[in-house]
């Protein structure tokens, strides 16, 4: 494989060997398994945590590798790609996010304070919480 592509998933950036032809990006299947943990077998796309059914296995994976767009679509993830920059970002699924908010459960997150100490929303379970999103801009 001639190229390296950076995939950013949940703020984690991994580099995967890729074959780029026009707008089409195919990722090295073994490297995808080693970095993000996804592999295709028996009509399923699987990680340690879950498997999702693959609608069109031939479109997802061939001898050139795993098609990036079909990979994101199979996972129902938003995907932003910059082929010249050799970089892509796997975003959150609209369906998943909407279902989570419709359930009225406050989604958990962990973020650092100014000193870099992580704080999880779930640490404050049992209190009433005012969650404020703000910015200096």
């Amino acid at each position, binding site marked *: 494989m001639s190229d390296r592509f*950076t995939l*950013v998933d949940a*703020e984690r*950036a991994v580099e995967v060997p890729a074959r780029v032809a026009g707008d089409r990006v195919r990722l090295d299947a073994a490297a995808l398994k080693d970095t993000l943990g996804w592999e295709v077998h028996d009509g399923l796309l699987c990680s340690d945590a879950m498997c999702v059914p693959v609608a069109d296995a031939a479109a997802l994976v061939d001898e050139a590798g795993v098609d990036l767009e079909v990979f994101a679509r199979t996972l129902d993830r*938003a*995907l*932003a*790609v*910059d082929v*010249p*920059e050799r*970089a*892509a*970002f*796997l*975003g*959150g*699924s*609209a369906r998943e*996010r*909407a279902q*989570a*908010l*419709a359930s*009225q*459960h*406050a*989604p958990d*997150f962990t*973020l*650092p*304070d*100014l000193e870099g100490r992580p*704080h999880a*929303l*779930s640490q*404050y*379970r*049992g*209190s*009433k*919480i*005012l*969650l*404020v*999103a*703000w*910015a*200096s*801009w």
Partner: protein
Amino acid sequence: MWQVLYEELKGRGFVIIAVALDKSADDARPWIEAARPTYPALIDTGHVLADLYNVVNVPTIFWIDERGRIVRPNDVAFGADTFKSITGLSAAPHRDALRAWVRGEAPALSAEEVRRLQPLPTEADQQARAEFGLGQWLWTQGRVAAAERHFARGGELAPHDFTIRRGTMPMLGVDSMGPQFREMRQAWAAAGHPYYRPLPDTASGSAR
């Protein structure tokens, strides 16, 4: 801006969690150090909160109850009236409602009201956030021209998302309170859209 209210209510099983959607901790630092909050003040350079909670502008506030349920979704409230002349929003209605809820004097919104008022993200919203995410990563790599393309695409996909349209200005060296922002806001208003979208009861000052 919220510290006074926090001091008043913190003994009643209440906490504030403030999350800054800024490009770096150093952008948020002077504000946090001036406010001297004793509640958690967190930094969110990747807009994780915007992604999970469908936040499209700041400030956006949520009430979350003891069981971890959202009992007031995506509302607009300020901790003080510092910017009232610019925003047109008074801090008092929300503050009074929050105080009554924390003290147990008044209920929050019902599950039915929360369901009705909770904005849900569309495919375009999430695509815009992915464009932001890619742009933000490119920006951290010093690839600013490429980052700008993705921020612009995100803004086109979700023109109501000012965490992208305005929030990326500092990464591009644009004054987020300057002429480019004022032009953006005026065009948005001229198209009939409000810049701030408080929930109806907060906006009318009758929040319970």
